[in-house]
C-alpha cells in the first residue's frame, strides 16, 4: 500500500483505529497530534473523545465506545501506529504551512518585509511544534544507559561533555556550555561584553571545533573580524594588536602566516552576520539564520537589539522563549550579550545582580546561565565577573577576576592569592 496515495479520510481513520493502548495514545500525543490534525469533522470529534477518555481513565476507549459516542466506526485490525501517524503529521504540517502562506498573501503585496518576518515566525513555530521532544522516562531506561555509557567513555578519554567556556573556574566544576541552553553575558555599556562573547566563541571554535554563527546588530563584520583575528591569533600562537591591525601597522609577514594557517584549516564554519542598515535583528531572522547555518554556538551581540513590534518586556520575554525553544530544537548553545539597567551602572565595578539586566528578568529568566561582568576599579586591563544564575549547579557569587587586554586579545582568569598576615592580594 502506498501511504501517500491514501485519502485523508483513510489515513485519519487508520490513525484513530491504531490508538488502542495507553502506549499508542502517548505516542500519538508525543508526535504532536492535536485538534488541528483532522480534516474530517467526525474524526476530529472522535479524537477529542479519545483524548478526554484517556485523560480521565488512563486508557483510550474501546471501538464500541467510540462508535456509540461519535458515530465513527474504527477499523478492527489496525495495529500499525507509526506509518499512518507519520503520514498524518506530514500532511498536517503541509496543510498548516500552506494556510499560513496563503494568509500572508495580502500582506506580502503591501509590506513584504513584515510579511516575510511573520512567515518565518509562523512557519518555524509549526516546525517546532512538530519536532517537540518528549520521552517516556522508564520505558527509555536502556536508551539512557547507552547515553550515560557514551558519556562515561568520553570522560574516561579526558573529553569534556559540552562546550568548554575557557574559564577554569567554570570548566573545572562542569559548568560548561551545554547544547540546548541559553547563556547571558550581562554588564554595563563598554565593559567588554562583546569581547567576552567573541572570546567564548573563538575558544569554542578553536579548542572544541564548534561551528559558530556570530550575529552583530551594531558592529560591522570587519570590526568583528579585526577583534577575532587578535583573539584567535593568540590561540594559534600569533601576537597581534587590534589597534595596529586597524591602523594598518601590523607585521604583514606574521599576519600572512596566520591567514595561511587559518585558511589551511579548511573549516568554513565561522559565520559572522551583520544586520545591514537595520541595526537590529528580528527573532524570525535569527531563527532563519540558525536553521540555515546549523551552528553549535549562536552568538547574539546585543539581545536588547532584537526588534519586534514594540521593544517591551513582553516582547523580550517572548523572543527569549522562542530562542530557547530553538536552542533545544536545533541542539545549539545560544549566548547573548545584554546590557544592564542604569541602577547597576551606578556601581560599574560591582557585577550586576540577576534582575538588573535590560528589560528586567525577561531574557535572563530563559537563560540557564547568566555571567555578570563589571569593571575593576583602577585597572582597565582587568574585569570582575560572577555567575549570578546557574540552573545546573551552584551560583558563583564571589568575585572572580579576568585579565582583559582587548588590544592584545588576551583574556583569561587571574588567580587570586592572599597573604593572610598582611591582607595583601596578588592577581596573576
Amino acid at each position: 500500500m502506498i501511504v501517500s496515495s491514501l485519502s485523508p479520510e483513510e489515513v485519519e481513520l487508520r490513525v484513530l483505529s491504531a490508538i488502542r493502548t495507553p502506549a499508542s495514545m502517548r505516542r500519538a500525543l508525543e508526535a504532536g497530534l492535536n485538534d488541528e490534525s483532522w480534516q474530517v469533522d467526525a474524526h476530529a470529534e472522535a479524537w477529542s473523545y479519545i483524548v478526554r477518555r484517556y485523560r480521565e481513565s488512563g486508557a483510550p476507549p474501546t471501538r464500541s465506545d467510540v462508535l456509540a459516542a461519535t458515530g465513527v466506526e474504527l477499523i478492527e485490525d489496525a495495529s500499525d501506529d507509526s506509518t499512518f501517524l507519520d503520514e498524518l503529521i506530514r500532511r498536517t504540517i503541509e496543510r498548516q504551512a500552506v494556510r499560513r502562506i496563503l494568509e500572508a498573501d495580502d500582506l506580502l503585496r503591501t509590506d513584504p518585509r513584515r510579511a516575510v518576518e511573520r512567515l518565518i515566525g509562523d512557519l518555524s513555530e509549526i516546525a517546532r511544534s512538530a519536532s517537540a521532544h518528549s520521552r517516556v522516562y522508564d520505558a527509555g531506561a536502556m536508551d539512557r544507559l547507552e547515553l550515560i555509557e557514551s558519556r562515561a567513555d568520553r570522560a574516561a578519554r579526558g573529553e569534556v561533555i559540552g562546550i568548554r567556556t575557557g574559564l577554569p573556574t567554570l570548566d573545572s566544576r562542569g559548568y560548561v556550555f551545554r547544547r540546548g541552553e541559553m547563556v547571558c553575558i550581562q554588564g554595563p555599556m563598554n565593559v567588554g561584553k562583546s569581547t567576552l562573547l567573541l572570546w567564548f566563541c573563538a575558544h569554542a571554535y578553536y579548542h572544541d571545533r564548534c561551528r559558530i554563527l556570530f550575529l552583530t546588530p551594531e558592529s560591522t563584520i570587519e570590526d568583528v573580524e579585526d577583534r577575532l583575528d587578535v583573539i584567535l591569533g593568540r590561540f594559534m600562537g600569533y601576537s597581534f594588536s587590534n589597534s595596529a591591525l586597524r591602523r594598518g601597522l601590523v607585521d604583514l609577514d606574521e599576519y600572512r602566516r596566520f591567514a595561511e594557517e587559518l585558511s589551511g584549516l579548511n573549516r568554513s564554519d565561522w559565520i559572522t552576520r551583520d544586520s545591514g542598515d537595520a541595526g537590529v535583528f528580528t527573532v524570525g531572522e535569527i531563527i532563519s539564520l540558525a536553521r540555515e547555518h546549523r551552528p553549535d554556538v549562536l552568538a547574539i551581540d546585543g539581545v536588547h537589539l532584537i526588534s519586534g513590534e514594540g521593544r517591551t518586556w513582553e516582547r523580550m520575554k517572548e523572543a527569549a522563549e522562542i530562542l530557547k525553544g530553538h536552542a533545544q530544537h536545533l541542539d545549539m548553545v545560544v549566548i547573548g550579550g545584554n546590557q544592564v539597567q542604569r541602577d547597576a551602572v551606578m556601581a560599574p565595578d560591582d557585577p550586576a545582580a540577576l534582575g538588573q539586566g535590560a528589560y528586567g528578568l525577561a531574557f535572563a529568566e530563559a537563560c540557564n546561565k547568566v555571567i555578570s561582568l563589571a569593571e575593576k576599579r583602577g585597572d582597565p586591563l582587568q574585569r570582575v565577573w560572577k555567575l549570578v544564575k546557574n540552573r545546573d549547579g551552584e551560583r558563583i557569587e564571589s568575585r572572580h577576576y579576568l585579565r582583559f587586554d582587548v588590544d592584545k586579545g588576551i583574556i583569561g582568569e587571574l588567580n587570586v592569592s592572599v597573604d593572610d598576615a598582611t591582607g595583601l592580594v596578588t592577581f596573576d
Partner: protein
Amino acid sequence: MAARRTKPEQEIAERIYEEMRASGAIVPRSVYPALVRRVRDWLRDSGDPAMVEMVLSRIARELGAGWNVSEATDPVAFDVVRRRLAVPDGAWGYALWASRRSRRDVRESAEHWLGVWRDAQEAGDEEGVRRARLMLDRLMDYDSAEEIEI
C-alpha cells in the same frame, strides 16, 4: 546667627580644598565658605564624615576646575557619586583610606576586600564581612609599618 564651623566640617573642607588646588585648578579662597556649607549639609544628612569626604573628593577630582561648588553639588549629584562608588555600609572609613594610598598593591588589595565585603553583605554572609574587615585592618597595619620603615 550663622552656625559655627565644627572641627570635622573644617577639616574635611580644608582637605577637599587642597585636593582641588593640587589638581591644578585655580580655586579662589572665596569658594571655601560654600564648600564648608556643603560639607555641613551632607554631614547632617548622612552622618558619616568618611563618606562625605570621599564623595566630595571624587566630585572634586572628576570635575576639577569645572566644579562650581555652590551650584554643582546638589543632593542628587552627591547621591549619584555615592552610589557609583558602591562602598558597603560601614566601610567608608576603609574606602577613604584606600583611595589615598599611593602603593598600587595596597590599593588593589583594599579594593578587593571592599568588594568581598560588599558581596558578603549582599549574601547576608556575616563571616565574609568579618573576614574582609579583618583583612583591611591587617592591610592598614602592614601599610603603616612599611611607611615607618621607609
